[in-house]
């Protein structure tokens, strides 16, 4: 079935059914998702898989309470059962809010244009990409012992109707290619990883890009074979552009999500307008970047995505809201209500979050650092938004000595807490770049972009074994 042409009468009836015993907001979220993935390892395509999942969720808000139910059946019986489940949970007894008549379907088909729909490309061409990546990775030398290449495409269509009368349709295509390479020299094993992804079609990829992606991953792994254990202690840390943005995402971004703010479980709660970063630091969350991996025309509550300034010249200027938290905190939804699928409750999530570029050059920054740690690529990290404490693994790091990159370092982690680190950013370059990733929160994974330019943190704890 084509969910864009879903029966609006049934949606309205479902909303009214959900609200019949109380509640002040109801929503129906209909989703049809088709995914295809290929995975190559050990020089062969060992898994090719694909499938289609469709279903609908009904959500009822009553004051600060949320009731949520979903069904795999996109017919009247399925929607009614979900509406009955949320209505049964509502105990206020009195009739709920009225359902505003649904207007014409809103959509923004040109927001993230797809030149070549992946489902129109023969699967053999996708297989060629992972094979090309394998070849390119292994060409990097005899020390390459394993290459894993993955191709994935998703087309997700969502239709969102709510009791405010909104009716939104969003057709999202995402394409992603990733390569992981393992290199070995004697007893030392190292890995390298690189990805390309976007809210775009197959035009994003070709064999040259596949080979380049593999070559970058292979180079990381081989470089790290010659690495020494990272030192321990506090020192200046230079974070490279691109993957370095993961640090801002974890150390700061999660604390700006309004659910953590509402519960006072964030160090940024109650600090609006206050200084939370060095004076030359500005930062944004932007879900509207054209064709960005973390972008989509609307969030998963039907709110258009937008560019939100979260820090301006060191001062906190914005939080990231979904509808529920925006209601509670008397703010406008910011297009950050996202969910992994119809099986998940929408919560405030980042889209593409980044620190704005400055005017130094990466070379200036390294040259200005007599001794320090250069983090070229972060492996990922975690944060406790309540305390702001975070930790990051460094996938590729180097020692900075006398203003030059010297020895590759392995096994390093970066430890600190959000505001402390933002206050210590003392140089920012102009080499802005965004990388694609999947962010996990409350058991839900959503595509996000992280980015920044090369920047320096005057002092940070580096944990290593050397």
């Amino acid at each position, binding site marked *: 079935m084509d969910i864009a042409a879903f029966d609006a009468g049934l949606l309205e009836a479902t909303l009214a059914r959900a609200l019949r015993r109380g509640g002040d907001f109801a929503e129906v979220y209909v989703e049809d998702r088709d995914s295809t993935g290929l995975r190559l390892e050990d020089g062969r395509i060992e898994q090719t898989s694909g499938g289609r999942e469709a279903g609908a969720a009904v959500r009822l808000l009553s004051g600060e309470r949320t009731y949520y139910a979903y069904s795999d059946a996109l017919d009247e019986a399925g929607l009614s059962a979900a509406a009955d489940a949320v209505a049964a949970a509502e105990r206020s007894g009195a009739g709920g809010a009225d359902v505003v008549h649904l207007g014409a379907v809103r959509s923004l088909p040109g927001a993230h244009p797809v030149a070549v729909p992946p489902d129109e490309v023969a699967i053999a061409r996708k297989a060629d990409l992972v094979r090309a990546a394998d070849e390119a990775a292994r060409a990097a030398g005899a020390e390459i012992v394993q290459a894993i290449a993955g191709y994935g495409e998703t087309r997700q269509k969502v239709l969102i109707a709510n009791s405010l009368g909104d009716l939104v349709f969003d057709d999202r295509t995402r394409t992603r290619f990733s390569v992981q390479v393992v290199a070995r020299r004697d007893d030392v094993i190292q890995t390298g990883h690189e990805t390309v992804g976007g809210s775009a079609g197959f035009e994003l990829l070709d064999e040259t890009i596949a080979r380049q992606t593999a070559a970058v991953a292979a180079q990381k792994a081989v470089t790290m074979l010659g690495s020494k254990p990272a030192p321990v202690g506090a020192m200046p840390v230079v974070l490279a552009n691109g993957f370095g943005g993961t640090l801002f995402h974890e150390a700061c971004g999660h604390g700006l999500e309004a659910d953590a703010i509402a519960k006072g479980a964030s160090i940024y709660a109650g600090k609006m307008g206050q200084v939370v970063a060095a004076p030359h630091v500005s930062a944004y969350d932007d879900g509207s970047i054209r064709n960005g991996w973390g972008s989509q025309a609307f969030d998963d509550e039907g709110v258009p995505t937008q560019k939100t300034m979260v820090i301006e010249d060191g001062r906190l200027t914005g939080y990231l809201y979904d509808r529920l938290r925006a209601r509670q905190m008397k703010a406008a939804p910011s297009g950050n209500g996202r969910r992994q699928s119809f099986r998940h409750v929408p919560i405030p999530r980042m889209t593409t979050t980044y620190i704005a570029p400055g005017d130094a050059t990466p070379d200036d920054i390294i040259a200005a650092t007599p001794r320090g740690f250069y983090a070229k690529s972060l492996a990922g990290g975690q944060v406790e938004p309540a305390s702001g404490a975070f930790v990051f693994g460094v996938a590729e790091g180097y020692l900075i000595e006398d203003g030059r990159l010297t020895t590759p370092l392995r*096994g390093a982690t970066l430890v600190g807490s959000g505001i402390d680190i933002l206050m210590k950013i003392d140089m920012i370059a102009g080499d802005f770049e965004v990388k694609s990733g999947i962010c996990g929160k409350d058991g839900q994974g959503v595509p996000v972009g992280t980015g920044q330019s090369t920047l320096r943190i005057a002092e940070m704890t580096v944990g290593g074994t050397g």
Partner: protein
Amino acid sequence: MFDVVDAALERARAQGVRDVEVYAERSASRRIKVYQHEVEQLTAAERRGVGVRVFRDGAVGHAYTSDLTPQALDAVVRRAVDNAAVSDADEFAALPQPGGEPADVHPYDERLTAATNERRIELALAVESAALDADPRVKTVEDAMYADGEGEVFLASSAGVRGSFRVNQCHCFAYALAEQDGQVETGYAFSVGRALEDLDPEACGREAAERAVRLLGAKPCASFKGQVLLDPFVSASFFGVLSSALTADAVQKGRSLFAGREGQKVAGELLQLVDDGTLPDGLDSVPFDGEGVPTRRTPLISGGGVLQGFLYDTYTARKADRASTGNGIRGSYSGLPGVRPTNLVVSGPATPVADILAGIEHGVLVTDAVGVHSGANPISGEFSVGISGILIEGGELTTPVHEVTLASDIIGMLTNVRALGDDARWVPGGSIFTPSVLMDGVAIGGT
């Protein structure tokens, strides 16, 4: 749902597919979150779907659907066949054969089905109250919840595999925030079981509060290299990361640090590590795996710290010319089986935790580790994470510490296991049963 499974098998036969396996599941789950003594979120969910795996001349294709109509079943089989045409052939890839009697394990408790929503809500509220009442410094319980789920799996293949089982489980969870002098520390705890009667909401809430409060006043400590006592939560994280290197998949593909070390000493004398999918109280216990192979008990490390073997699914077992250990695990109908542990059990001669602490001149009791999945590399064995805990000086717990790192390598940590506590418990998330573990030679990075 055998009707759906059989219909898909029939569609495959009609399309000329000889080797096919169909996996169907249906499940129902509930989740109740409370906040400030009120229900904050109540979720009720049902899902079902079917996955089809076909083998054509050694090439594997897979497809899945949540639509169970005859047309959708026909389409999903066709898609699996098309996908098999893209995959590369491999002489060891073949349809799993019937593997004998399912393990005698019954991971389903009727009592959970009879529970009412009122009881569930009461339980979640009790978790939050217990955390708030435990200490005035607990300001908020950011997450206080009860959740349960039940599912039924149906598996059949053209080779004659045919089986079905039911599972259920429930748990409660608390994530408490304690505050003092503007400093916030967090603690979590959970209680798991197969019936509401198995859960202890008061103990769960209280423990989360205690774990947060005991860290108040924490600061970084000086760097040192020495002893750390990992509490069961942290120990479970460590063994969870390590277990991915004990799969035959990782070994055969050159991404395991244990490759080629079978029969060698890889851990301290005391330590034993077993995978066991048949334990009555193990949350990941099932009668057979995602390929129909009965689960079993598989020793991984025993006999004085010696590596005994690895975990296998059908493919890796054929490649190694041996039998599957029943570890071909499926996450859901939309995924292919992969080699993964069932329940992991860490054991050895138990020493009272108080005695272990008393014997530590200088070290850290580690109560939380963040970044285990990003900071630990199961391929290279490097292990570097951020930790919180309590300093141990002269055999006594002294000041709390946080924002320090713990770094070592997996083999180094294993071989330096010095003692195991008497506090073994189940830790969910990977279903691991482990006590506190004392390790030496670990680098703590602080000021």
